[in-house]
């Protein structure tokens, strides 16, 4: 069951990045670069999100020759619901550590 504790600023940033194009699968390293987060921060966040069924994970099926398949991530329906809830909280003027109000405007 998802915990009710408010996500950290870094988790919010990951959620926001994943919610920008929710149908696209993303790579972990690309998320690190985009958000300027180290792997040591990114992977524990991804693990927590996946544990709470907020993040869907799959393995790449068309990995290049000689390279192992990569792990891909995108938000689940619950994850999208959480982002929507956080946006609503933000719109109500409550601080959530990240401005989600302008997204999609």
């Amino acid at each position: 069951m998802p915990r009710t504790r408010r996500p950290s600023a870094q988790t919010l940033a990951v959620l926001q990045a994943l919610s920008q194009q929710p149908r696209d699968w993303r790579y972990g390293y690309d998320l690190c670069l985009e958000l300027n987060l180290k792997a040591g921060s990114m992977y524990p966040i991804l693990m927590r999100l996946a544990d709470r069924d907020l993040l869907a994970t799959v393995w790449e099926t068309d990995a290049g020759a000689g390279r192992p398949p990569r792990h891909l991530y995108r938000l689940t329906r619950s994850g999208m619901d959480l982002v929507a809830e956080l946006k609503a909280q933000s719109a109500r003027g409550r601080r959530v550590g990240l401005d989600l109000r302008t997204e999609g405007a």
Partner: protein
Amino acid sequence: MRDLPAKVVEVVSRLLRGDRREWGAAMTAELAQLSDRPARWRFAVGCAWAVLVAPAHPGAYAPGVAIRVTFVAGVVGCIAATAYVVTTWPHAAGEISGVTAAWFVAALAAYLWIALRPPNALVAHGDAARRGATVGIVLFLVGAIGRSVIDAFVPPDGDLAIGVFLTVSVGGTLLATAFATARARQSFGAGVTASLWVALVCSILAFSADLLAILSGFNLDAHMRHSMPDYYTVVTPDAFMSRHIGEHLATSMDGLRTLPVLALIIGSMGAALGRRRSVSRDTG
């Protein structure tokens, strides 16, 4: 690319618990995409940190980040400080027997293992483990403060007082923690688990503190010279220092394994008593 960063990620990935292994494979696959050497190193170090602070899988208990970092830092500190001591005072190494040294290496390996992949027996009772770890930190602080107070107020023959104080405080804490936990959880295993975590956390902290004390020369104080005047006059200060440090180091090394064994024995007694009380309370 089979370079050192790849090996680092491969090794740390193996430390992940079974239900987290796919994350190790994910990190390995990401690393394979990177060709820039500094970037590979940065990513590999990040992966090592990720493994260290990886959250417990839902339903399972794993030591919190603070406990894990304490254990790993304690082990690394122990290795570094021990190496420094035996290279700075080579005679000190002569006071450490092969058996003690072997136990020391095994104990450090076990502590590292517990920090990164604790065995199921130690994590089956999550609340008990957490409670024990917390009590272990408190016990270490109380022990350190108590020793300082006794050192300050009961010189120069304070060793007996310190011994009595540590025996009572450590033994009492192990017994009380096991008793209370077993009674609250109505589980013998929970009581023993709590007692073991008290000992594990307390002993790694105490060992690290002991090494710091040795390195700072704190233990070579007046009352030691006072208590060994004959000995001190027939050996050189360097030889005295080496022997004193060696003996102290060997004692500290023994403590790393003695305390967990004591915890198992005393904790079993406390847990048995606590479980018995909880059963009699339920049926009474």
